């Protein structure tokens, strides 16, 4: 059964780097699995921990937060705050026993279409054997 399992990933992409990077993947006609639904936000620094918890609660099997590389943030330093905040969220989710593979952060620049593609491919590959995320999921 898990073989046919197709995970759903919610990806919070910053507008200036990671969303642009995913655009580049598209322009370059790279291929990755359709399991990821992007939500473009202004900055990785604007991703509240509540968004992440909420996505898992609503049944996301994986959540990705992606921003500009340190030093490249369009808003100078938003990604630095994101890095700290996301680290804490990760520690907390790990601690309550959510598989650490389910929550990821990445730096993807506007030039890194390939990297974005790889990240999504690997993410889906890692999530498949885990099966559906039921721990935080609200009963439907």
């Amino acid at each position, binding site marked *: 059964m898990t073989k046919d399992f197709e995970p759903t990933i919610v990806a919070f992409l910053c507008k200036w780097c990671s969303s642009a990077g995913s655009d580049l993947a598209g322009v370059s006609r790279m291929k990755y699995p359709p399991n990821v639904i992007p939500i473009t936000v202004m900055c990785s620094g604007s991703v509240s921990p509540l968004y992440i918890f909420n996505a898992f609660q609503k049944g996301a099997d994986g959540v990705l937060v992606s921003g500009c590389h340190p030093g490249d943030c369009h808003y100078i330093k938003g990604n630095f*705050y994101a890095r*700290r905040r*996301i680290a804490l969220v990760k*520690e907390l989710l790990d601690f*309550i026993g959510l598989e650490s593979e389910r929550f990821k*952060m990445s730096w993807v620049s506007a030039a890194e279409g390939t990297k974005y593609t790889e990240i999504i491919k690997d993410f889906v590959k890692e999530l498949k054997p885990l099966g559906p995320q039921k721990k*935080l999921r609200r009963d439907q």
Partner: protein
Amino acid sequence: MVEMEQLQKEAKEILKQGKVKFVIGYSKGSQNLTATPVFIKKPEHTSRLIWDPTCVQNLVKFIVDDKQKQSREKKPDERPVGIVVKGCDSRAINVLIQEKFIDRDDVYILGLSCEELGVVDEKKIAQKLEGKKIEKIEFAKKNNLIVSTKDGEKKIPVKDVLADRCLECKAHFPVIYDQLFGEETEREVKEPYKSIKKTESQSPKKRWDFWKEQLEKCIRCYACRSICPMCYCDECVADSINMAVTAETTAEEKAQKIKWIERSPALSENIGYHLIRAIHLAGRCIDCGECERACPVDIPLRLLNKKLEKAAHELFDYDVGFDHKKPSLISSFKDEDPEDFIR
């Protein structure tokens, strides 16, 4: 050694001089059990103040209450509040100042050093008594407790029943005070994060099983939130029960209110609530243990906060409540913050 008489004398003095509007401290427990908070307004009542390892509560919550009450009053008494604090509690005051919820001048701090001790854990005492009902607890000489049950008195060394948080405490003396009672004694803490060690070392599945069992118990009474000195928001983002509705609140605003979690005490909602609470206390919780003490269903809530306290310390070199002039954990960063978890 903290001289109780000195504490009482200082409290009397500041009340007499009108320096403070009242003093919040500890007095003998009403049922001869652990100490109970007391508000003293008259100098002649200061003899009621006590200090011993049964003074478990964090009284800073009352500062929060007073501040909130003041903001509703037309002509509030703006004199400071005198407050008796332990090391951990003093750090709560620092966080409140850091977050500009109170000014330094709002409080007159009577700081008590726990010295080589700390405060007791009532559950540990109960364990020692194997289920027998406590009739009376008294703090006796040589750091012993004399606990009376129907079977008579039992001597228990305080060290054997100290709360876990005291065993893991990094600063058992106040870091901010107007008057200090007792010594700033150095004490080595070998395992500052001992209580989370076991959970940390387990597999994700084991950890999940543990938390599932614990959080399923939650009845969402919000005692943890009500007793927490850091939970001073008028409206908690986790639920809209106490949504602050004013004359200016529009229907649209009410409709816009996001239900991050449902009110039902289902497991997913309980987890949602406690995750939000824990992450909102990251870099703010000073480990006074009140949430866990107040929990009627014995959820080890401290552990969630302790985990993030540890992360703050180890990842970001941030210790909570030591310096109110520094920016908060999440409103600051360092270039060299770890990012090995980021791809």
